[in-house]
């Protein structure tokens, strides 16, 4: 079990680097740093919003939990106490966007490809 700890630490670093790039992509000013366990990443937006990301337990169908305190919210709100469970990184990104108030326009539209001749 201990042998996998460095790997998990590496993955945590990669996640934080990725979330830092995500903030830049969404043009949100802020920082991402390691939080107090079990928090893997703590996002502090310049707007005052705070997001905490944790790994979900291995025996659940989820991968991540996200909690947040919106800009201007008082500590101890519902979203801070009751995490949103995310089944994948895609879901986690959606939760973080919601927490930070990021609007990226219409959702994906994947259309059928033309039949090959």
């Amino acid at each position, binding site marked *: 079990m201990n042998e996998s700890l460095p790997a998990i630490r590496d993955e945590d670093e*990669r*996640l934080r680097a*990725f979330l830092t790039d995500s903030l830049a*992509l969404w043009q949100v000013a802020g920082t991402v740093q390691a939080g107090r366990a079990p928090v893997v990443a703590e996002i502090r937006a310049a707007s005052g919003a705070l997001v905490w990301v944790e790994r979900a337990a291995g025996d659940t169908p989820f991968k991540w939990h996200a909690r947040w305190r919106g800009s201007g919210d008082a500590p101890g709100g519902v979203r801070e106490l009751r995490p949103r469970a995310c089944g*994948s990184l895609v879901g986690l990104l959606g939760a973080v966007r919601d927490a930070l108030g990021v609007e990226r*326009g219409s959702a994906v539209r*994947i259309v*059928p490809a*033309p039949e090959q001749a």
Partner: protein
Amino acid sequence: MIPVSVITGFLGSGKTTLLARLMLDPAMGRTAVIINEFGAIALDHDLIETSDESFVRLSNGCLCCNVRSDLTLTLGDLAARRAQGTVPRFERVVIETSGLADPAPILHALMTDSDLNGVYVLDGVITTVDVLIGLTTLEQHEESRRQVVVADRIVITKTDLDGVRTDAIKQRLMTVNPGAQVIEAVRGAIAPSALFDCGFYDVSGKHPDVSAWLAHDSIAATDGHEHHHTEDITSFCIVREEPLRAVTLALLLSALAENCGEDLLRMKGIVHVLEQPERPAVIHGVQHVYHAPVWLPRWPSADRRSRMVFIGRNIRESWVRGLIDLLDAEVAAENTKRTLVTEPLPIAGKG
């Protein structure tokens, strides 16, 4: 299906001259032409000689602003008339946009409109750039940049003028859109084969030239890692040795669309999917619209690496690489977990 090519380019960049020369080529004999002009008087129509009725002029505004009402109806009407035999049985459509058009809505209509799907297929985007003022136009006009970044072929025009050098404009175009082939035209003279059939759809029954579609030479020249940046537009190519899992690919397309939105101007690629090692998946997206992956019958060459080209605003290459790596690791871990759950426990004393 009928391939549709879009010729775009800024005002005065030589679209009409190019089209007029192309239409003189016998290879363009069965081509329907749709011309859109921004202005009350349609002049371009008079500058192009055509011999049949497969010619439509749209002069009531900019095509990209009226794409649903005008282009969709026009293409639908053309297809109906073709079926009825009231227009010659054209085998290709060329749309010339106005100089101020954003091609993206036109591409969206061609990719997604249910009235057009099954009849037409987008072949490619050809963008003209004036060698004399192209650099300035790119710098000053967002419309020009948008036209260049969605191009599959970029035609540098007016190169026949004395003392003209194309080095600077070529370099700039390669920076803005490394996934496009850049071609020089002298008085619009270019063989149609250099501009058309540049899509990956096997419209004519021949094997699609995926490398040309991806402009693979430009990817190879940068070893897949070069990162270009100009103003707020970034473009980069990702080459990946390891196959991607099919679920990772689906999640990747969702994540790109949900997080990049309209900032991802164009992406295209050929992907080695773990579960289908002999059949590469071709992916293609414009802003938040993606085609479902197309599975080619076989690899077009011995190169079986995944290759993806991205052009967008404010999108870091490290973000896309991180996204792919994290998603693939997540899917791999999930597969491992499922395997452990479904495999029978070893029985003590056996094996």
